C-alpha cells in the first residue's frame, strides 16, 4: 500500500507559483498593463533621456531669442525664462520626483511593516502602544508639518525631503499590516509552524510576511503616485527640492507667473505629474485585483 503512488492531480507543466498566477491575472487588466507600459516608458525617459537631449539642465540660450519660446521642433517643450530647454528639465525633474517617490515609499514601508507586524503579531501592550503612537501620528496634519519641518531642519538635499515624506507615510501601511497579521496569526498554517517549533521571528518573517505581500505591494504602488504629488506640493511651496536641481514641483513653482504668457511651462510638468500619478493608481488597482486572496485556492 505505502509507496504505491496514487494518481496525481493534473498538475500543469509550469510551476504555477504565486507570481505566475498574479501575472496571468494582471494581463487581463488592460488599463493596468497599459499604465505599466507607460510608466516604464516614463522611467526610462527620465533616467536615460537627458543623456540624449541636445541641451543640458542649465544651459541658457541666447538671452533674447531663446527665452520663453513655445514648444517647437528645436525645443519640444519650449524654453523657460532663462532659455533653458524645458523638455530636458522635465526629464531631469522626473528623475528627482521619481526618486523621491520610490525611496520615500520604500522607507515608509519599512517602518510600517515593522510597526504593523510586531503590533499585530504580539498584540497586548506592544500593540496598544504602537497603535496609539500611530494614531497620534495620523492626527497630525501632514502638509503644514512638512512645511515646518522642512524649514526647520537644516540642509537642502533631496534626502531630507525623502525622510520627511517617509516620516508621515508609514502609518497607513502599519495599520493595514497589523490588520493582516491579526488574522494571519490565527490561521492554521501559523499554528502548524508553532507546532513544529518555529520561533516567533521565523513565523513573522518567513511565514506571515510573504502572505501579507499583496496589500504591501498595492499600497506601495499607490503610494508612489501619492508621494510624487506630495513632493510636487512641497517643492511648489518652496519647501521641497531647491533649485537649481529641478523637480516637477519646483519647475511648476517657477512657472507660476508665466501661466498666461508661457502656459507650456505649467502644463508640461503638470501633465507629467498627472500622468505618472494616475498611472501608478491604475497599476495599483490592477495589482490589487490580481493579487486577490482567491489566488490562494
Amino acid at each position, binding site marked *: *500500500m505505502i509507496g504505491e503512488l*496514487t*494518481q496525481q*492531480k*493534473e498538475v500543469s507543466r509550469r510551476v504555477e507559483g504565486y507570481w505566475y498566477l498574479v501575472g496571468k491575472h494582471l494581463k*487581463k487588466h488592460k488599463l493596468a498593463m497599459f499604465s505599466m507600459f507607460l510608466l516604464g516608458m516614463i522611467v526610462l525617459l527620465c533616467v536615460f533621456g537627458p543623456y540624449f537631449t541636445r541641451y543640458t539642465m542649465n544651459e541658457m540660450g541666447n538671452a533674447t531669442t531663446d527665452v520663453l519660446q513655445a514648444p517647437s521642433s528645436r525645443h519640444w517643450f519650449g524654453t523657460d525664462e532663462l532659455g533653458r530647454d524645458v523638455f530636458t528639465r522635465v526629464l531631469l525633474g522626473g528623475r528627482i520626483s521619481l526618486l523621491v517617490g520610490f525611496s520615500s515609499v520604500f522607507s515608509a514601508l519599512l517602518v510600517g511593516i515593522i510597526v504593523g507586524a510586531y503590533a499585530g503579531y504580539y498584540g497586548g501592550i506592544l500593540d496598544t502602544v504602537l497603535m496609539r503612537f500611530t494614531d497620534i501620528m495620523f492626527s497630525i496634519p501632514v502638509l503644514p508639518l512638512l512645511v515646518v519641518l522642512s524649514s526647520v531642519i537644516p540642509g537642502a538635499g533631496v534626502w531630507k525631503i525623502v525622510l520627511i515624506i517617509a516620516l508621515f507615510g508609514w502609518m497607513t501601511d502599519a495599520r493595514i499590516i497589523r490588520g493582516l497579521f491579526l488574522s494571519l496569526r490565527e490561521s492554521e498554517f501559523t499554528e502548524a509552524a508553532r507546532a513544529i517549533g518555529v520561533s516567533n521571528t521565523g513565523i513573522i518573517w518567513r511565514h506571515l510576511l510573504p502572505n501579507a505581500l499583496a496589500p504591501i505591494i498595492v499600497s506601495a504602488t499607490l503610494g508612489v503616485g501619492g508621494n510624487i504629488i506630495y513632493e510636487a506640493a512641497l517643492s511648489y511651496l518652496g519647501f521641497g527640492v531647491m533649485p537649481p536641481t529641478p523637480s516637477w514641483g519646483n519647475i511648476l513653482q517657477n512657472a507660476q507667473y508665466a501661466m498666461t504668457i508661457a502656459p507650456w511651462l505649467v502644463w508640461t510638468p503638470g501633465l507629467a505629474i498627472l500622468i505618472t500619478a494616475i498611472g501608478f493608481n491604475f497599476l495599483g488597482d490592477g495589482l490589487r485585483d490580481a493579487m486577490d486572496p482567491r489566488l490562494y485556492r
Partner: protein
Amino acid sequence: MKKNEILVDVKNLQTYFFTDDGVVKAVDGMDLRIGRGEVVALVGESGCGKSVASLSIMRLIDKPGKIIGGELLFKGEDLLKKTEEEMRKIRGSEIAMIFQEPMTSLNPVYTIGNQISEAITLHQKIHATEAKKRTIEMLYLVGIPEPERRFSQYPHEMSGGMRQRVMIAMALSSNPELLISDEATTALDVTIQAQILDLMRGLQKKLGMAILIITHNLAVVAEMANTINIAYAGKIVESASAREIFKSPRHPYTYGLLQSIPKFTEKRTNEPLPAIDGMVPSPYHMPKGCRFNPRCPFATEKCREEEPEIVELTPGHLTRCFHPIES
C-alpha cells in the same frame, strides 16, 4: 409510474460553466425523475454536479454558468421555457429549497418571524396578522419550542439546529410540492442531524411533499430515500431504489464507495479499507471514455475509448457501465 404522478422529469440536463480557464461541464447529461410525494436522493462527491443540478432545477444558475441543454419538466411544463417572472412565482411556493448553512441563508438583521412571514406574504395574499399566525403554526410544526417567543428572535440567537428548523419552516410555509434539501444536515452535529432528519421524515409523511435530498452521505439517505441516484463527474452513473443500491449495487463506483466506508455496525478488524484508487477527475481534464475508468478496477479498453450510455438492467435499476457488477 403513471404520467400524472411524475412531479419532476429532468431530461438530459446540461449545465456548463464558461470560465477563463476553460469550460467546466458541471452537469453533462443528467436524467432525474421525482414522483409526487417521493423521496429521491442525489448522492455524490465534490465535482459530481449535484448542487449545480439542484440550482439548475430552480433556474438559479448565473454567469459564467449556463443551462445549455435538456428539459426540466415540472408538473408537465418545461421550466427552461418559463420567464424569470414565472420562475419567481414557483420558487419558494411550489418548489422550495433549504441549504447547508442556515446562518448565511438567513438575514441577520431581521427576526426569524419576520423572515418567515415575508416568505408567506410573498406568495399568498393574506394579511400580516394572518401571516404571523401561520408563521407561529409553522414554527410549532417544525418543533421549535415556545414559538411565540421565538418569533421575535434573531438568527444569531439560535443554534445551528434551530436555524435549520427555521429554514424548513420557511420552505414549507407555502406548502410546496417539492422540497430540495441541499446538504442541509451536513454541517450539523450527529445528534442534531438525527433530529432534523426525523423532523423531515415526519413532515414528509404529514404533508405529502416530494423531497430531493442532495448529499454526499450515503448513510443519511438509507432510511429516508425511496430512490437513490449516484452522480459522478457530471453524470448519473446509477439509479435504483434505496434497497437495490445498498443490497446490490451494479456500478463499480457505487460498489467501491459502499465497500470503502468503515462499517459502524461491525467490530473492528485490522484490515485496511478497500479504498477506491485515484481522485475525482479535474473538471478541465475529463478522462476519455467512461469518466470513472482511471479509478475502476474492472476497466477494459472499451471503457477507455467509449462513454457508456445509461441502461436499465432490471426494472427500475439503471446503470451507466459496460461491465456492471453481477447482482
